[in-house]
């Protein structure tokens, strides 16, 4: 069983729609008040526990737009971490549009499951079994492999308009206004501003355009070997024709630009809406120490620059919102197998489950009390005595100094729910504003798996090859299950822990 808790504060009478993942599980019509009275509570605040962690509450005035979507692309398991962050950010900032992730054939089942939890739609794209034309282009120009995968976004014709976001972007606030733009709108590339950067662009899916693009690719190739060169030569009038198709740079703030014009960054950087980690160093190539909130670059240098600031933001997003969903995945899988684990799964205060994206405006600051909506089986009571702080709709960069990150991470990332009795106020803690000191620091510090380990000299978090490596750092007991899960997916770590020598040691125990 999985639950997600949604807290809403005082709410004016309206219709609520509740979304679980991509499907709408319920429409609560009438007024909130009347609905609350149905559930035997006369309080005007509620906490719902749902079967899935990612829920949305929308009101009529932010009705979901079904025919427009944000699209991102994950070609492998590492990039899918980036995609998860993109999707998670979009949700958290309350987009009313659909979210779509295109996955390449090499993305593992586990990652797909995680992506499906965050995105409305996970679409597998594989050039090799796509239309003849794509295939032919592939044959003629094999070097364009990944590029052609990206072009598949034009085939998403169930949407009328889409915004493409690279998996190495970080969305800092609601950017739904991008849908007011036309194809093809994009921000200038910092290296050659007459070209647009293809990390963020607005487009209209159309099979016709898709075909023309493929034909173009076959005939002209790409001058930089990637999608950006191809798209720039295809949409060659972007630079000169219509200024409304020039997105402001804050919608695609390349991290490399920070260095080239530092004063401008200092002046306008605070308005950034989407950060793009352009270049060789991606956030997941760095190491992140949750204890100190420091991001270490590959070469071991601690990044204290402005780049480091963004890397830090990425990692906070990742640790707070994406990693918990993995643990959710695990517990979900375990529960099917091991009955003994169920009690733990039902713990409502699992920090990760208490995260949710509710549109900020919808959540008032009013005093809240909980009401529990239990799906399927037993209902679990949770009381939220504390004021839940809503996430600011747009993070204020000035708040996020390195200093201010430091205290946040530890208590938010408690990962051992068994140690916390149900109903204790730990459940509320993750709503703590970054500036707040953790309310139950003493318990949090002593029982958490990961922070203890990082204190005792464990290596900091690193996302080099896949999320599975990350999971290894999470928890010793999860480790075993995680390893087994990887075996079952055919991804045993045969060069590391699962080497036959270790199996042999186990065998030799009973052969004695």
């Amino acid at each position, binding site marked *: 069983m999985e639950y997600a808790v949604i807290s809403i504060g005082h709410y004016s009478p309206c219709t609520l729609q509740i979304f679980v993942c991509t499907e709408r599980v319920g429409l609560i019509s009438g007024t909130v008040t009347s609905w609350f009275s149905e559930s035997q509570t006369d309080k005007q605040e509620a906490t719902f526990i749902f079967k899935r962690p990612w829920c949305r509450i929308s009101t009529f005035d932010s009705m979901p737009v079904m025919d427009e979507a944000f699209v991102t692309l994950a070609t492998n398991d590492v990039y899918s971490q980036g995609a998860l962050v993109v999707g998670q950010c979009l949700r958290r900032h309350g987009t009313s549009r659909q979210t779509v992730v295109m996955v390449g054939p090499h993305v593992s089942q586990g990652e797909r499951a995680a992506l499906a939890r965050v995105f409305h739609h996970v679409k597998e794209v594989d050039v090799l079994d796509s239309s003849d034309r794509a295939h032919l282009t592939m044959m003629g120009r094999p070097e364009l492999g990944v590029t052609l995968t990206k072009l598949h976004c034009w085939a998403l014709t169930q949407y009328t308009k889409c915004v493409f976001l690279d998996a190495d972007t970080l969305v800092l606030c609601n950017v739904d206004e991008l849908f007011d733009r036309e194809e093809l709108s994009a921000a200038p590339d910092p290296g050659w501003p007459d070209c647009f950067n293809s990390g963020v662009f607005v487009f209209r899916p159309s099979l016709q355009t898709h075909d023309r693009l493929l034909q173009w690719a076959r005939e002209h190739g790409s001058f930089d070997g990637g999608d950006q060169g191809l798209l720039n030569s295809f949409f060659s009038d972007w630079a000169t024709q219509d200024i409304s198709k020039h997105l402001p740079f804050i919608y695609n703030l390349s991290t490399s630009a920070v260095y080239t014009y530092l004063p401008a960054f200092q002046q306008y950087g605070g308005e950034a809406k989407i950060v793009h980690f352009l270049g060789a160093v991606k956030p997941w190539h760095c190491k992140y120490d949750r204890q100190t909130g420091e991001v270490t670059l590959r070469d071991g240098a601690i990044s204290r620059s402005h780049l480091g600031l963004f890397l830090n933001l990425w990692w906070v997003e990742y640790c707070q919102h994406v990693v918990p969903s993995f643990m959710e995945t695990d517990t979900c899988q375990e529960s099917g197998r*091991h009955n003994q684990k169920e009690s733990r799964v039902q713990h409502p205060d699992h920090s990760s489950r208490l995260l949710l994206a509710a549109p900020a405006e919808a959540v008032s600051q009013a005093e809240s009390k909980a009401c529990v909506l239990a799906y399927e089986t037993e209902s679990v009571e949770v009381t939220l005595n504390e004021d839940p702080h809503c996430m600011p709709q747009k993070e204020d960069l000035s708040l996020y100094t390195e200093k201010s990150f430091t205290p946040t991470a530890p208590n938010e990332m408690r990962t051992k729910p068994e140690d916390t009795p149900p109903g204790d106020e730990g459940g509320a803690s993750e709503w703590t504003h970054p500036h707040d000191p953790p309310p139950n620091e003493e318990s949090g510090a002593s029982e958490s798996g990961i922070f203890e380990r990082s204190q005792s000299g464990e290596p900091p978090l690193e996302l080099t090859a896949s999320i599975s490596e990350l999971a290894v750092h999470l928890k010793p007991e999860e480790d075993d299950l995680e390893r*087994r899960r*990887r*075996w079952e997916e055919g991804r045993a770590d045969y*060069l590391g822990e*699962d080497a036959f020598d270790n199996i042999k040691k186990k065998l030799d125990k*009973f052969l004695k």
Partner: protein
Amino acid sequence: MPLARSLSMTSLSGLEDWDEEFDLEDAVLFEIAWEVANKVGGIYTVIQTKTRLTSEEWGENYFLVGPYMESNVRTQVELIEPLNPALKRTIDKMNSSGCKVYFGRWLIEGSPYVVLIDVAFTAWSLDRWKSELWESCGIGVPWFDREANDAVLFGFLTAWLLGEFAAQCEEPPHILAHFHEWLAGLGLMLCRQRRLPVATIFTTHATLLGRYLCAGNVDFYNNLINFNVDKEAGDRQIYHRYCLERAAARCAHVFTTVSQITAIEAEHLLKRKPDIVTPNGLNVKKFSAMHEFQNLHAQSKNRIQEFIRGHFYGHLDFNLDKCVFLFIAGRYEFSNKGADVFLEALARLNYLLRVNHSELTVIAFFIMPARTNNFNVETLKGQAVRKQLWDTAQTVKEKFGKKLYESLLVGQLPDVSKILDKEDFTMMKRAIFATQRQCQPPICTHNMLEDSSDPILNCLRRIGLFNSSADRVKVIFHPEFLSSTSPLLPMDYEEFVRGCHLGVFPSYYEPWGYTPAECTVMGIPSVSTNLSGFGCFMEEHIADPSAYGIYILDRRYRSVDESCNQLTSFLFQFCQQSRRQRIIQRNRTERLSDLLDWRYLGRYYVSARHMALAKAFPDTYYYESQDPTSKQGFRYPRPASVPPSPALSRHSSPHHSEAEDEDEERYDEDLEAEKDRLNIRQPFSLPYRNKSALPYVTPVSNGNSTPSSTTSPPSSITSPPSSVSSEKN
């Protein structure tokens, strides 16, 4: 007679004594394999043929354990109630605990008892068992590998069966469990992990990884020591299977493989040296008539000749009596089965025969099933044309005979000029005209689906063997299994093999190699390699294999080019034998069949079982050859202590027989058969130099006049490459 002889051929020291030492009264043997009463691949043949001997030895205490497959059970198993009370209780207990276990007799030779377990019925336990497997040894099994999941179920069920049986026996008997292949291996591991009172044997017939590596065109044997086995298995997505296999090898009391070459493979890939090599045998059919197999050869050869007549119609410019039929057969694995080497050697042989103006024609058959589109019209037409000629000749003959008869009736000698009239000549001329053809005789008998990418056809195109009339080597590619109902070549495989002169199997990867073994039993000489289990076995047991029609190609220590040269020289030597020499050679080959009979080879299994019993129950059983020195004999190919006999390395059959041809009375088959016993190599003594091998010193001195006198002197045969180069001059 043959049995007595084969007993003395043993290379296992002390083997004879065990029968008295080992009291099997209170021992029970379970033989566990996925292919018990379930044909999937070659293991089925091994188990099915071996069973007769094993049932004779163990009687009522022998049980085969396999999976329950309804279609197989319906056709080959008679379900009965178990007679053994303990086993009956075991099966009842398991059936009442949610399993489906069947008991019956397998209707094959020896009609052994079988315990068949319905694996699918207990699939609901899969998750629990996989967790247990994970807890106990840290091996996980991917959900998508159905075969491996079946192996998990089968393993847990067999371990359950054995454990339950041990518990049900009032006085625990000595249980011996013999597991074949990785699919059954998990049961072994669990027996050890649960510390069941079971002596265990694990036999691999090939290693998983070896198969994968060779299929991937890896330079396998040269890198055998260097492979990072975990990585190779993991990269090929078979890590879990490999772990199961290696774990079973690790846990077994006794680990065996089918040949020396697989033993080396296992030592490096599974990291355990097999305790004993247990070669695969055959059930040899004994003919009542002495040289029945020679008659069968002649019969079958005639039928192949008929086919050749039709196939080459219009181009029959060679003498069918001076024709040698070679063949290669097996799964279509172009390089693993050595078709590449064979083709190359054929091209070189063609050259040699042409420069020597040989009258001999070599016809090489490739029987390897590939994807086809049914028969080629041209080949079918060939057979039709031949039939038409035959019919014409019959009609003319009848008329001729009638006229002859009538003329004799009236007391006159027939007038030869009138006996065939104009009409007959017209008919015959028309028939002859029908045999004209412009195109070359076809190579392939079928329409290939992948004609342009087929490796054999492409290789033939490259080396230019197109069945032209100048070629002394003709090639026929039959890309389908043989069948007695075929309109083209209506013979089954056995008949076909009997009709050929030489089987050529220059395989690169061949853990055992039933094809050359079958040839041997039918008295047909064959070429195998020192990378095939069969070749290793013969090399170890026979001092001069080629004299017996067992040509062993060195593919292990030589480059491909050198191997091709060696094969060319084997083929060339073979072609130069006279008909009589070939007959003698076939007699010798056929005599080796005792060596391949389970009655002899079963002994290796017997000793493996004794070894396991002695290891598991040291208080009850004692196994003599525990010290490593005496085990060396059957664990290493060609013991270093034995100096190679000159007969082995220098000479091959033509020279023996040639010498005998000078003095025909010297060939006495019974005498030679008697001597064979001595020619079979004893690993622990100096090899006996066979008397029949002596005369080859002489032929050079007394200018010999046999038809094969063109043979190069023996010295030039010493190293095959040199012999080839000398022939070119």
